[in-house]
């Protein structure tokens, strides 16, 4: 497996943060286009999912925040305890967590958006 340099990982960390800030702001603004509780009704949410650009945006948010969040957790865990085995477990564990969360969230986006 390719070992990413820490500076590359942290550049990804900053990049995902900036990207997520913009997209999450749009995501929240969409909730404000109508009354908050109305916007959460089943029909409104399904319409959101079926609107392709919005679904793509949700997927992007999912990927960006998963990477940013789990890399942040990885950093905290690496600082908490040290050791070759432990650090390997943390690194691979976080990659696995990102993959699982993205897969699970993508499943929702695909099924709700395309009626799969």
């Amino acid at each position, binding site marked *: 497996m390719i070992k990413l340099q820490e500076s590359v990982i942290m550049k990804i960390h*900053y990049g995902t*943060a*900036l990207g997520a*800030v913009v997209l*999450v702001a749009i995501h929240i603004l969409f909730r404000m286009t109508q*009354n*908050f*509780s109305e916007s*959460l009704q*089943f029909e409104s*949410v*399904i319409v959101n*999912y079926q609107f392709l650009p919005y679904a793509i945006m949700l997927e992007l948010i*999912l990927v960006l*925040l*998963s990477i940013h*969040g*789990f890399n*942040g*957790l990885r950093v*905290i865990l690496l600082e*908490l305890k040290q050791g070759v085995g432990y650090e390997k477990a943390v690194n691979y564990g976080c990659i696995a967590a990102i993959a699982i*969360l993205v897969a*699970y*969230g993508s*499943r*929702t986006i695909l*099924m*709700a958006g395309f009626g799969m």
Partner: protein
Amino acid sequence: MERQSNREGIKGWLNPGRYGLERIAYWLMRLTGLGLLLYFIAHVFETSSIVNGKEAWQKMLELTQTTEGHIILTIVIGMCVFHTANGIRVMLGHGGVGVGKPGRPDYPYKPASLNSRHKLCILASIGLAALAMMYGLAVLFGD
């Protein structure tokens, strides 16, 4: 072993006030980051109920659209705003932006990197988070 190395351990993260505002911001950044990650995982999980149809979605909404749910969401709004605003400050700082210029240090050696711009940004982040929480409360409980 811990005694031998004399590392402060996690308790070194506590009592952040003794090292000033920047250490409090560091501590809050960590705490809000962990909180937001937890919320994000929970959010991905709760929204997945939509694939099980309207009934499942309504059931999930009933569970979250409660006073407790709204309070949690308000805290999440606050955490999100602080983490974003302070994150931008930290990111710029990490690039060396706004940390001052090297120069000849003079007594009483006030560190240029811990300048008033950064302190103001930290306070503004906390203030913005408080304002967003108030707005969130108004929206969530105003419905």
